[in-house]
């Protein structure tokens, strides 16, 4: 709360949004809609495609927050790699093409309740906490240069550890998905 008091000045009107805010909200609504479709659609492949929309929308949000490097990484890794991986997964598990009526489990209503409760709690808390907080978007905060500098200057060690993690995951995935030779 004390952080919220810092950039408080009269130039930001609550009911006079800037253009960036309007775009952010609109795109945000799109992201949210796409995300909802992702988790509710009966067609499994469509869900993956709606995921693309949601993740892409998020990349736009990152751009709007001036985190351009992250945005591109998002596009590359999520939209490019992860979604493709997911699509492969769906196909390899012989997901049906077309609507599958039992896409949602019997747990649905409990899940809905939990999710709504969580949403209500989180939104209430977040709104209450950051009611009067504004982000200064005057300078670009996430340029590639800035990110590279911080990453290779201050975050080298975690970065390297992460590479090892990735390698381990790679090896693990290969071993897991490898078909074992039938014993004679």
């Amino acid at each position, binding site marked *: 709360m004390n952080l919220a008091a810092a950039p408080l000045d009269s130039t930001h009107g609550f009911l006079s949004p800037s253009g960036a805010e309007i775009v952010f909200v609109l795109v945000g609504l799109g992201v949210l809609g796409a995300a909802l479709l992702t988790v509710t659609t009966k067609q499994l492949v469509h869900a993956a495609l709606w995921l693309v929309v949601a993740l892409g929308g998020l990349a736009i949000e990152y751009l709007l927050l001036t985190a351009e490097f992250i945005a591109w990484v998002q596009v590359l890794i999520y939209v490019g790699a992860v979604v493709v991986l997911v699509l492969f997964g769906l196909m390899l598990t012989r997901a049906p093409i077309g609507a599958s009526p039992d896409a949602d*489990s019997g747990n649905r209503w*409990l899940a809905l*309740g*939990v999710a709504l*409760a969580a949403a209500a709690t989180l939104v209430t808390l977040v709104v209450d906490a950051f009611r009067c907080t504004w982000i200064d978007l005057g300078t670009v905060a996430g340029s590639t240069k800035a990110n590279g500098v911080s990453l290779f200057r201050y975050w080298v060690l975690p970065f390297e550890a992460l590479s090892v993690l990735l390698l381990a995951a790679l090896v693990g995935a290969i071993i897991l998905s490898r078909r074992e030779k039938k014993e004679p």
Partner: protein
Amino acid sequence: MTLTLAILVPLLPFLGALAGLASGRRAPGLVRPLAVLPTLASAVLAVLVLAKLGAKGHLDSATRLTPTGGLPISLSVHLDGIAVLLAVLVTVVATCVQIYSTAYLREDPRYPSYAALVSLFTAAMLLVVYSGDLIVLLVGWEVMGVCSYFLVGHHWERPDARSASIKAFLVTKLGDVPFLFGIFVLATDAGTFQIDGILGAAAAGRLHHATLAALLLLCGVAGKSAQFPLHTWLPDAMAGPTPVSALIHAATMVAAGVYLVARLEPVFLLSTAALVVLGIMAVITMIGSALCALAQDDLKRVLAYSTVGQLGYMAGALAVGDRDAALFHLLTHGAFKALLFLSAGVVIHAAHTNSLTAMSRMDGLRRRIPDAYATMGIGLASLAGLPPFSGFFSKDAVLTAAEHAANGDALTGGLGPAGNVPSWLGWTVLIGGLLTALLTAAYATRLWLLAFFPVRRPAAEGVVEVGAVAPTAAAVAALASDEPAGPVEPAAMVGPLWLLAVPSVALGLVGLWPHALPDWLDGVSLTPSSVTWPIATALALLGAGLAWLAWRRAAARVLAEAEADAAAAADPAPLLLGPLLQPSRNGFGVDALYDRAFVRPVLGAARLVSFLDREVVETYVQGAAGTPGLIGRVVRRAQNGNTQGYLSALAAGVVVLAVIVAVAQ
């Protein structure tokens, strides 16, 4: 020598019973010898013991098998005049019954077990008679209870036999529980279970709880000897085979109670209260049972109630302190009652019915079974107390004793202070006894007339008994028509009748002879007193005459109404009893009273317990099983292996925690 013989007397039937039970199924040919011979041998031995011991002889012998703590229990034999005389009676009657049963139950598939149980019954009674130790006596006493249960329930296919056997068992056990405590009280006071020791203690005045002990013992005696509050089992016990009834009524079961009181008479004489209770019990029993006997339709039930009444005489004699008279009556009664039952068995066998009404319409019974006709007449005359039959003398001995007690000098034979017998008790017993003599003669006559003298319709053949006064009536009952001459009764059934008829006639004379019977007992004279016997005989004759007159009137009415009511019987009981008929027929409602007072509450309590058990206790049990099951099912639902369910719960918990934290701040 005498001791060995005496030990063999109860042992032989016992071994016979064991052998019979063991071999009955495998060697059917052995069953009859095994049933009859040991009993016969023990009868011979009992007579030998009697002869060897001699009058006023005593033999006591005890051996202790093992230490039994504070009060020693020993296997002991106590032989005196009473014991040896009674042993002879028991063995003779048992022999007659065994011989008779070989013919009577010839076709019965369960004859082997029946014969073995009769032998065991005899052995148990002999154990009671010879035992010198109260605990050993109690063993015989209880074995008899069990045997009576089995024998009364011999025809266990029939529900009335089943319930009668259970009733006999339960009612006698009801008396046996206080009886056991009475033995304990006696033994605690005297410091021994030996009868000799107890009597010695009684003589020395060391029995401090004589009244308590005597009253407790009386409960058991009332149960076994079928005295007033606990008499209800005996008439129902008629469901057993007739020879068993003879055995129970004459020699064994019911005699045990009287015998025990006679053995412990000095103890009873110490307590006026016990004597009064015994006397009142006896008077109620004899009058009530005589009235019941007068109203019964079942031949065997009449005899059963007569047994109850005669036992009342014995108890009355004991109450006025004269055990000699009681034992004298016990002996003669044993003879003529066994005779009556065995001849009744023959009659029932020939008539194929128990009902006197049916017999009264049945023609030619007299001709078909002349032996039973004659012997039953002897038995009934003895029962009614007509001179010179044995029952006359023994009954009069009882009345004489009562008269002495009424005059204040009870004939205790030196066993106890005569002053303990209140004179009003003597009067009560005397008047009760005289009244009963009247009633007894009446029902004996009624039985005799109904069974053997059918009311003949004039259309029927030959001898006209009452028919002379009757108008011509065409109605001839189907049963009265000529039957083919019935089966000649086998010698095994007739022989015992005549064997028993001898003492029924002659045993009374022994009492007259001053050095015969009294010497074996306490030496009290058994000669009838000149006051009582004319009155008693007159009353008996009056009863018989009244019954005869009533029978004639009833018969005349039957003949008059023959066309209207072919089923009517020439029963004198309604005329004699008047309004008392129905209550008498129902045993004065004692059974119904017990039913209402004990059976129904017990059944209700049982139902309540069963209800509590089934509905309440079992609910707890079911709940104890069901609740964990229910909880388990609920909990198991959660543990269904569905990861999403787990995750949902996890997330919900996190949300709840978050809300709590947020609200708390």
